[in-house]
């Protein structure tokens, strides 16, 4: 096999494609051997083709701050991230289990609150929760499921263990990139798809559409489904449009809706008003309904909460779901699994220190230079402290913040995120990455085959977020020969 140009990462970091000895892992054999044959020149050319395709296909995300030209293509790396189907099966089961437990928790918290009474989940955490919506108390969404769509972030540490880093339960995005990345790879490397068994990912839109249809409060087999988007300036607008198209749903903005006096929700169409059954909302709770949440929201639908509580319309994810999308609540998910499902967690959590606990806080403050500190409710990688890389002043600033608002901070050991070879110029270099699979739950549940691999394009960087210099890769779940 021609040698592939690749400097194997040092410091014992786990590489997804290569063993520490520099040999391809079984799932990566076919692709690495093929890339080796192609050589750097051809790889570079295909990367250019991919970049041109991305630009032409208009696969972009939006950056708020840039006026005028709001599109940014998201860097795509042509070296896939591979994983064996056997390993994936275990992760798949773990993700289903986790979402099931999270939904039990959310339904419990908005109804009986058994978990508080039983002392498994401390009441003061709920009281300090920014995303708990009292307006949702006593509501029973279909199947007692609140988070119908979840995008959990997985990371792998140096010893090969895959951890759940966070559960994105509000409006997780990225699935369209997963789908488009596969499209691009099939166009670029049709020959590899014939060489090994790469499991397909393209049934996600159909699964999503079916799941949403199951939520419809009206009988009839063709419910009216709308994707509620904040509009073209939202960073994920491309995805909203893409999913609406794939599902044959309406792509609607807040102003397209109208709620009547009988709490029914309608769309304004060229034929008049059309009643809506299911809304896949991509708008945060805060902006969903100015009658209940932020009054100044212009992207929401006045009266939507009335309709939802009365059950004339289903909303996915249900309002209030964010209560479980909190890094403090995260620390309790293994307990939820034990409490609600009477099972041991299949996927581990990253060990998490809660600054609200005195012992934990003392430890965190004493070890800021080793830990990653995160605010409980931010997403997109904002407002974090990566201790080992921060300056003394930054650490001092965080120490003050933690002391001021301990409920809002958690800390975790700095994981040595795994890497994969990534094409930089004309050669491969290791870059850190994570993985975001998407999990659906209504009557049944479903997990994407693999998910979206996000990669930090800067050498050594651990930040994979699209808004902060991250890119993405196609994720190949490979069935090995029996």
């Amino acid at each position: 096999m021609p040698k592939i140009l690749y400097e194997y990462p040092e410091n014992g970091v786990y590489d997804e494609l290569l063993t520490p000895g520099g040999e391809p892992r079984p799932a990566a054999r076919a692709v690495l051997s093929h890339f080796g044959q192609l050589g750097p020149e051809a790889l570079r050319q295909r990367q250019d083709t991919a970049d041109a395709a991305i630009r032409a296909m208009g696969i972009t995300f939006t950056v708020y701050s840039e006026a005028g030209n709001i599109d940014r293509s998201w860097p795509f790396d042509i070296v896939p991230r591979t994983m064996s189907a056997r390993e994936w099966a275990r992760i798949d089961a773990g993700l289903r289990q986790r979402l099931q437990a999270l939904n039990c928790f959310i339904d419990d918290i908005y109804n009986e609150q058994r978990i508080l009474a039983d002392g498994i989940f401390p009441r003061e955490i709920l009281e300090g929760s920014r995303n708990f919506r009292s307006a949702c108390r006593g509501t029973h969404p279909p199947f007692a499921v609140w988070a119908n769509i979840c995008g959990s972030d997985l990371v792998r540490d140096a010893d090969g263990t895959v951890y759940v880093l966070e559960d994105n339960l509000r409006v997780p995005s990225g699935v369209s990139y997963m789908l488009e990345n596969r499209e691009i790879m099939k166009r670029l490397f049709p020959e590899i798809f014939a060489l090994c068994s790469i499991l397909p990912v393209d049934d996600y839109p159909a699964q999503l559409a079916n799941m949403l249809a199951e939520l419809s409060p009206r009988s009839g087999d063709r419910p009216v489904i709308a994707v509620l988007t904040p509009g073209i300036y939202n960073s994920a607008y491309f995805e909203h449009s893409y999913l609406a198209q794939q599902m044959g749903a309406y792509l609607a903005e807040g102003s397209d809706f109208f709620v009547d006096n009988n709490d029914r929700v309608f769309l304004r169409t060229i034929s008049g008003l059309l009643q809506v059954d299911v809304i896949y909302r991509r708008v945060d709770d805060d902006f969903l309904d100015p009658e209940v949440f932020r009054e100044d929201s212009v992207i929401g639908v006045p009266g939507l909460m009335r309709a939802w509580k009365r059950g004339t319309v289903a909303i996915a994810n249900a309002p209030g779901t964010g209560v479980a999308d909190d890094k403090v609540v995260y620390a309790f998910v293994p307990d939820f699994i034990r409490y609600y499902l009477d099972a041991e967690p299949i996927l581990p959590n990253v060990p998490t220190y809660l600054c609200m606990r005195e012992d934990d806080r003392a430890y965190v403050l004493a070890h800021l230079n080793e830990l990653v500190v995160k605010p409980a409710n931010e997403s997109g990688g904002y407002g974090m402290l990566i201790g080992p890389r921060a300056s003394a002043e930054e650490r001092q600033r965080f120490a003050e913040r933690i002391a001021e608002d301990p409920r809002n901070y958690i800390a975790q050991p700095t994981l040595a995120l795994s890497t994969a070879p990534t094409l930089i110029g004309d050669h491969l270099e290791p870059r850190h990455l994570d993985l975001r699979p998407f999990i659906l739950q209504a009557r049944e549940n479903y997990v994407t085959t693999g998910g979206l691999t996000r990669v930090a394009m800067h050498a050594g960087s651990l930040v994979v977020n699209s808004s902060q210099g991250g890119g993405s890769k196609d994720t190949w779940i490979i069935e090995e020969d029996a």
Partner: protein
Amino acid sequence: MLSRVAENLYWMARYLERAEDMGRFINSATLLLLDLPLGTQFGWDILLQVTGEAERFQQFYGQPAEKSIMRFLIADSRNPSSLLSCVHQARENCRTFRHLLPGEFWERINSLFLFVQDGLEKGDIAGDRRARLEFLEQVIARRHALVGLLVSSMSQNAAYQFIKLGRNLERADMGSRIIDVVSAVIPPDDQGLRKTVYQSLWVAVLRGMSALEMYRQHVGVQIQPGRAVEFLLRDSKCPRSVRSCLADMEIGLAYLPNAGIPADALRRTRRRLDLLQLKSLSPAVLHEYLDQVQKDLGMLHRSIENAYFRAHEDQSPYPHPISHRIAAQA
């Protein structure tokens, strides 16, 4: 189909048509200039009059001159009717409904926008006539490819009809303005101008409206102003004529629900067009008449807006229909 989406489709089509018409008209004026005797004063400001943006131009540039007019009409984002603005607007509109169009459409309109943006950044489109001709021809060709894509691969559904309405309304509007402005500028007979030059002017107008060859086939090789006006306004075969645009819109409306009021407005406009005695028209009366056409088209636009883009909350909802979910794709 959502009202907002219908409105965006309609406007996208208008912007694209405007961009093409503008490109054509500029190229045709530039070619005309080459036919004029050396030293002839050419009134570039005729282009400003056609777009109705003369005042805005003066505000930014002052005295009209070829280069500044070209910059204003092609590359100036402060001018909402500039080619750049039109293509940009069309593309932004397209974002909101790209899921309704053939997949390639977005790629192509995106690529048209990038072409215009790159072209304007790199080349001296305003100052270099040769570069400008080539650039605008490219824009026109790319716009044709967009229309061709829709005609050949889009279902004739509601989305298609709104595109058709927008395209034809804009085309009729631009056409009637061009005829109006040019008729006012060109003297009624060839006083002072040599016969050949005079011919050239009308050749340029017909070419600007992409109707020259059709005129020659249907009317004759000699170009007479009266007959050219008749052809551009009323010929039922030429797809650029105002009459054809109206006919096409009528077909479009027939596909749509609640078409009563717009269809009435359309018939009124057409009737007025049919009754006109063009032969005996003095320039002043022609101008008055074309003014009326403009007003009628404005009314037609507003009636479409009211019927489709402003769904009223007092309208009773229609019952839960199987067929209407398909409207999402339609």
